[in-house]
């Protein structure tokens, strides 16, 4: 029986003091992404210590001590960037024991294919820390509430959408900053959930980045996911091996939301709570925060909630012009766009909030490939991806049932299923008129590698006819294939982004980058500065490119370089 993998990360000092020989460990075993009995063939087990509320209090004291000694600001960030490079190389290095542990444990525990995990490990460098320092300095002008503003040191644009009706909008008038005084958090409590690897790690990296505001890196206590507790502790332990001080203020482990004494202890100390979890869990945490605020008679604790979301793709007609090709490889652009957009959908088998569900494809004139031709290309690219980046161990019956449903809709003359019954993915071309419930159902159908291709006459129909019918709080990213060679961020793209942002979309990326969000941009409407300052109610939408056409080719070359 293989020993359990650590599903927690605690700095050495905490292990020595808060964890004694009597500390009890809890373990869970998973096989093919589903809970199973420990010791079952193919089972992977993960363990974590069961710490009492008193042990967590002691842990907070130790982390606070470490905080006093930790480097801060640019010095910290420079060391972190260097350490992450080392860690990235280790995960990419075939002989490294950390990579070996990851590849031996993550596929079985999480259910995702080994190839998917391998690509993630080798693609850690795609999560850029570039431009983070500038995110905590300077300000975001109120102009962002009235239109797109550029982002210092980074490509793209930023836009703020105020909530709270006309009073909220009034706050965006005039000049000055959208944000208030610096309130860098001393203690962040986080919650990472779900089986997509790295939710806890993302919160840790963002939290540590707050040191760029000039304060010491915060103490961070993060509840790890039971569904995938392995990846974040592995990265943190690798970081600790590279430079232990960098993660000396961080503790990642697992406890229950119902363990009220632990929750009260931690939330009672928190300056900021960050949760990436289901809407139900977020509601539960929100209530616990409110109770703590009342009990301690303190101002409302800041709470960054990242609930469950949906993302989409939009393919502009200008990228479907016949004859357009990558000058380096000669590959037609329609193939590249379909491959990268397909990748945005198949990553994490559409269990992730960033995974694109429906691909909206703009009809062009006679010089353009048709949306149906795009759908055919997408089907071909998904077949390739199925071979190189296989689907995880999810029930095929889900794909079969959707195949049957969409196949039966072919009788309407408005649906065409392009994949086969035995394919481990579904591509269907769907031009039925959809009311809001039917659109919701179509969106919900697109999980586990099911993609609907919907033609639109104009990209503006995407927000105008579709996104506006969906709950804005559930919208997240839009992967786009748009722009022309040398065309940059055109008025058309900005107008499209503006309309999508107004519907609730919080990030626009070029195709192929959907699964690799950049920390410096908006995550569910929150930008890094939100970690250290308060502002009026609303959300940010970011466009993460200046030259979409060139970025698409750049992304393609990067993946090509990785042998995909």
């Amino acid at each position: 029986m293989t020993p359990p993998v650590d599903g927690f990360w605690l700095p050495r000092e905490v292990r020595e003091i808060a964890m004694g020989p009597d500390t009890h460990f809890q373990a869970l075993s998973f096989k093919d992404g589903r809970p199973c009995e420990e010791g079952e063939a193919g089972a992977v087990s993960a363990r974590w210590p069961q710490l009492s509320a008193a042990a967590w209090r002691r842990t907070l004291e130790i982390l606070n001590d470490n905080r006093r000694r930790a480097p801060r600001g640019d010095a910290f960030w420079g060391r972190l960037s260097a350490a992450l490079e080392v860690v990235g190389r280790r995960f990419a290095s075939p002989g490294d024991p950390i990579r070996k542990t990851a590849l031996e444990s993550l596929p079985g525990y999480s259910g995702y294919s080994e190839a998917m995990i391998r690509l993630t490990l080798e693609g850690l460098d795609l999560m850029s820390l570039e431009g983070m320092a500038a995110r905590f300095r300077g300000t975001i002008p109120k102009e962002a509430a009235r239109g797109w503003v550029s982002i210092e040191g980074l490509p793209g644009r930023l836009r703020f959408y105020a909530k709270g009706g006309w009073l909220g909008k009034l706050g965006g008038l005039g000049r000055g900053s959208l944000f208030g005084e610096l309130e860098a958090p001393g203690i962040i409590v986080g919650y990472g959930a779900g089986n997509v690897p790295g939710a806890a790690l993302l919160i840790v990296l963002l939290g540590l980045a707050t040191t760029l505001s000039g304060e010491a890196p915060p103490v961070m206590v993060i509840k790890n996911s039971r569904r995938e507790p392995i990846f974040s502790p592995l990265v943190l332990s690798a970081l600790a091996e590279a430079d232990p001080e960098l993660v000396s203020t961080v503790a990642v482990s697992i406890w229950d939301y119902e363990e009220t004494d632990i929750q009260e202890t931690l939330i009672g100390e928190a300056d900021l709570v960050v949760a990436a979890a289901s809407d139900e869990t977020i509601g539960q945490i929100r209530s616990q925060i409110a109770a703590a605020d009342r009990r301690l008679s303190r101002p409302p604790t800041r709470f960054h909630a990242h609930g469950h979301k949906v993302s989409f793709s939009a393919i502009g007609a200008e990228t479907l012009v016949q004859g357009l090709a990558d000058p380096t490889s000669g590959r037609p652009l329609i193939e590249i766009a379909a491959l990268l957009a397909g990748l945005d959908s198949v990553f994490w088998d559409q269990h992730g909030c960033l995974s694109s569900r429906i691909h909206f494809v703009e009809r062009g004139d006679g010089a353009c490939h048709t949306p149906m031709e795009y759908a055919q290309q997408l089907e071909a690219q998904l077949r390739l991806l199925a071979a190189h980046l296989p689907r995880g161990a999810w029930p095929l019956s889900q794909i079969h049932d959707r195949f049957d449903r969409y196949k039966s809709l072919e009788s309407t003359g408005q649906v065409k299923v392009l994949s086969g019954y035995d394919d481990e993915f579904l591509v269907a071309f769907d031009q039925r008129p959809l009311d809001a419930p039917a659109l919701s159902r179509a969106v919900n159908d697109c999980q586990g590698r099911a993609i609907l291709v919907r033609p639109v006459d104009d990209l503006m129909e995407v927000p105008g006819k579709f996104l506006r019918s969906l709950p804005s709080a559930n919208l997240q990213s839009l992967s786009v294939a748009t722009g022309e060679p040398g065309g940059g961020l055109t008025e058309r793209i900005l107008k499209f982004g503006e309309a999508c942002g107004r519907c609730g979309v919080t990030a626009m990326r070029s195709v192929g980058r959907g699964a690799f969000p950049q920390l410096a941009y908006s995550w569910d409407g929150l930008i890094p500065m939100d970690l250290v300052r308060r502002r009026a109610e609303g959300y940010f939408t970011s466009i993460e490119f200046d030259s979409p056409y060139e970025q698409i080719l750049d992304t393609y070359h990067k993946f090509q370089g990785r042998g995909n």
Partner: protein
Amino acid sequence: MDAVQEITKYEKDRTIQGKYGLADFWEMRPERRAAVLLRAIQEGHAWHFERNPAYRQAVSARGVRAQIAEEDLPRILRQTSQTFKSYIEILGTPFPQDKPREFVEWLDEQLSVRLPRERFGRIQRRYRSLEALLADIEAVFGDFQFEISTSSGTSGKSTILVRDREAIDKTVESLYLSFQRYMGMQADHRVIFIMPKETRIAMARFTGFCIERLETFNGRVHYTIPFPARPDQVRIRAGRTFRDGWAGQIERRLWHPLINWANERYATPRSTRETLRLLRAAEAAGEKALLFGGWVHLHSLAREVLAGGHPIQLPPGSLLGTGGGFKEVYAFTPAQIRGDLALALQDVQGQPLPFHDVYGMAESNWAAMQCREGSYHIPPWVYALTLDEDDNPQMATEATGLLAFYDPFGGGRLFPGFFKSADQVRLVNPPGRYDPALDCACGEVGAYIAQGSIQRVDLMEEAGCAAQV
């Protein structure tokens, strides 16, 4: 005899379906049953493949042709939750009364007999209710002797399916044989249904038919819910799907609360009183009774009896039956309800009356009834198996998976009775994988669903951070 019936009879005479009656299957050894059923499935498939456009389209897309081998069995299954609900997406509305002619086109595609197209023009352009549309279809195609039934419709989006006289007769026979065999019912009960007489809900309707068709029950069958349960009323009462526009606002704001109020304040108490009256009369006359109702209705009755302080004591052989599970959140568990029923309804010795749950679905022409040991017995003329998560048949003598069934003998000629359900069950001794050591303690030989193992599983689990909207 019309042309359709003639063809059916001719076909029947020359096929295996014509050779065996349903009851014959109890006389067969399990291995023989499996072989006969498999041959009948192959014949039934070929017959429907040739005639049923929707079925042919569905299975052809999976690479299935008219002739199938045993390994093709999983590929001819259609989903219960999808097949006869597909009109919603094809018509673009859950209200077929708004698009009646398109609905009839859809219906025609679903059947293995062709509806005379010249009559399509007799279907109106719009109907005031789903009930009106269904009644008119039955009238326009009266010579087919259609009975249109629905699922319970609590989602507001009903499964709608058609049976003809032959299918209804088979269903009635199937249910009656099972009632007799597994529940020990003879034709000497006073039968009390806590349900409306007028309903299109398949399981209620066919259970009622089953009893009514038996002349020995004349005058001793009672329905105690005083109002009809038409599909439109069921939809509005459930409150999950309303019409668009003003009509929907009136449904939502007026009819929905009003129907629920009337149900709670008037229909349920009246039904409970009437049921009690009938039971007390049976008690006084020493008549055996069969009481059949939903879990919630039975519980309401039990609490009323217990509040009165005196249990009802009925002669030996009296029975309690339920079915349909829980359609809404209910504050009491089945075990609590069984406990209250055991105290409220007893035999003359003060022992709890035998209580049997019935498992079935709108698409099936059979039901699995609980024996005294609690197992749900699949009638032997039905070939049941479980599927794993990839839709592969599970080859064990006992396995937990999605229940699939083939009903080549009782399924009728209008559509193939080959379905994959949305229920996960633990199935023991399926055809072809029989182990006598696993026979139910009640003595029945053949496939059964283990007690407490039925679980609805068609809700998508949220594994990652992707939302359901």
